[in-house]
């Protein structure tokens, strides 16, 4: 196998494994549009990276983190509905990123690779980011798992039972922002959310518990990456979108499959 294909596969699998559990929380907490908004700000991160001569991934991570904080704070006001606010941030930051890049005369970027990912151009340094950053995000998520689950089920109940709700929520948003920034390279800013939610949504029917669903989502994400990359290599299609198409195919196949597990109406008696 060629080096660049191997790197692409490793990057894709790494991202898919991280996306499974995070995507599950995105689905449970209905944060799909939130993730999308973070992803849209990535171009601004690229511009920031060029401007300050930073590593571009680092630029994206920084901008995503800042946006997560802004979103969290602005959602405390009650004047505008949450989705309106997210729409403003998403398209505002995307356009701002495009305009900022246009101002930089000596910078030429391949816009498509940012919009739809450039997994075949993954460099060894990107792999370090994905496995280092992704590993960190995943480890912290495992650490926060139980309080986060309690908050997801009922925030007030968790608070009364002594969970540091605000701190856990902040940490979770930071981790989501990091994950989104890392996924950018693989599927691009327009498709990040799909890799978060499609595997998780597919896994739901076959899951008896939250952990099972998270692990299954990771596995399904890996299948989608493998299938998408194979398709891309075989038919010379763009890699990022091919991965998402593969995820969608698995989703549809899973719907046609009888679930049999967990969602059944039977009740075990003790």
């Amino acid at each position, binding site marked *: 196998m060629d080096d660049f294909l191997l790197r692409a596969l490793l990057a894709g699998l790494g991202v898919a494994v991280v996306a499974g559990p995070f995507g599950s929380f995105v*689905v*449970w*907490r*209905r944060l799909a549009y939130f993730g999308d908004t973070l992803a849209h700000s990535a171009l601004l991160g690229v511009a920031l990276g060029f401007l300050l001569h930073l590593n571009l991934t680092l630029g994206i991570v920084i901008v995503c983190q800042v946006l997560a904080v802004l979103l969290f704070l602005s959602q405390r006001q009650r004047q505008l509905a949450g989705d309106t606010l997210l729409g403003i941030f998403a398209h505002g930051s995307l356009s701002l990123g495009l305009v900022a890049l246009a101002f930089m005369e000596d910078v030429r970027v391949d816009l498509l690779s940012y919009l739809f990912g450039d997994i075949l151009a993954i460099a060894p340094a990107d792999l370090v980011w994905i496995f280092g950053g992704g590993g960190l995000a995943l480890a912290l998520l495992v650490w926060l798992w*139980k309080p986060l*689950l*309690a908050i*997801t*089920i*009922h925030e*007030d*109940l*968790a*608070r*009364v*039972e002594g969970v540091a709700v605000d701190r856990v929520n902040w940490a979770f948003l930071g981790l989501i922002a990091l994950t989104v920034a890392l996924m950018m390279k693989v599927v691009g800013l327009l498709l990040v959310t799909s890799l978060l939610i499609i595997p*998780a*949504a597919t896994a*739901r029917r076959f*899951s*008896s*518990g*939250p952990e*099972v*669903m998270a692990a299954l989502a990771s596995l399904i994400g890996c299948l989608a990456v493998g299938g998408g990359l194979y398709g891309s290599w075989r038919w010379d299609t763009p890699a990022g979108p091919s991965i998402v198409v593969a995820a969608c195919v698995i989703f549809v196949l899973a719907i046609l499959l009888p679930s049999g597990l*967990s*969602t059944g*109406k039977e*009740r*075990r*008696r*003790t």
Partner: protein
Amino acid sequence: MKQSANDTLLEFSGVGLSVGRREILKEVSLKVGRGEVVTLIGPNGAGKTTLLRVGLGLLRPTEGEVYLRPDLRTGYMPQRLQLDPTLPLTVRRFLGLAGSRGSEELLPILREVGAERVLDSPFGNLSGGELQRVLLARALLREPDLLVLDEPVQGVDVQGQAELFQLITRIRDRRGCAVFMVSHDLHLVMASTDRVVCLNRHVCCTGSPEAVTADPGFVELFGPLVVQNLALYAHDSEHRHNKKQEDFDG
């Protein structure tokens, strides 16, 4: 019931809460003592749930003070718990979130609330009554001195409502914990509470169920028709309550 200062678990002193210009609570003073069942009743929008949330420390009052006995263990049963259907969760896992516990701890609590057969059921398959019982079990897992219940019989049929209130009374009798609850169901709650607090942003009247139903403030709040019906119901549910109790004891 006479109480020394130490017996006070929760006390509101002149509590007020305004959001913008809207006054939601105004000069509310009330006390919940050890082992006491205090029920908040009042029309929709009277601030019952808000007062409960202030008592739990989830909301900060804009005026007045809330006293909680130090080291008070509180068990909370929220008004409605709607789990996102995408989240697969069994009752066992749900209860485990209150602290890691095995079946040997979970089963007795579920048995206490009469829901032991749902331990491994998916959360989404629970009936209204089972859901309330499971929520109650989660609150009891904390071995509370004070149970705070927000509309504990919501989404339960009438027969089930009476049973739930009897269950709450039995839990109080057995564990000696105080109960502070919200209900807008007047007649069922009358038989299972020591003290009723009529709330309509401020405390309209308070006292034993019998005293409150005779209070002009209560009549004004709920109208004479409701009060008349209540007299009938109160008698009726008292009767049923005793019968059930015998069944259980026998």
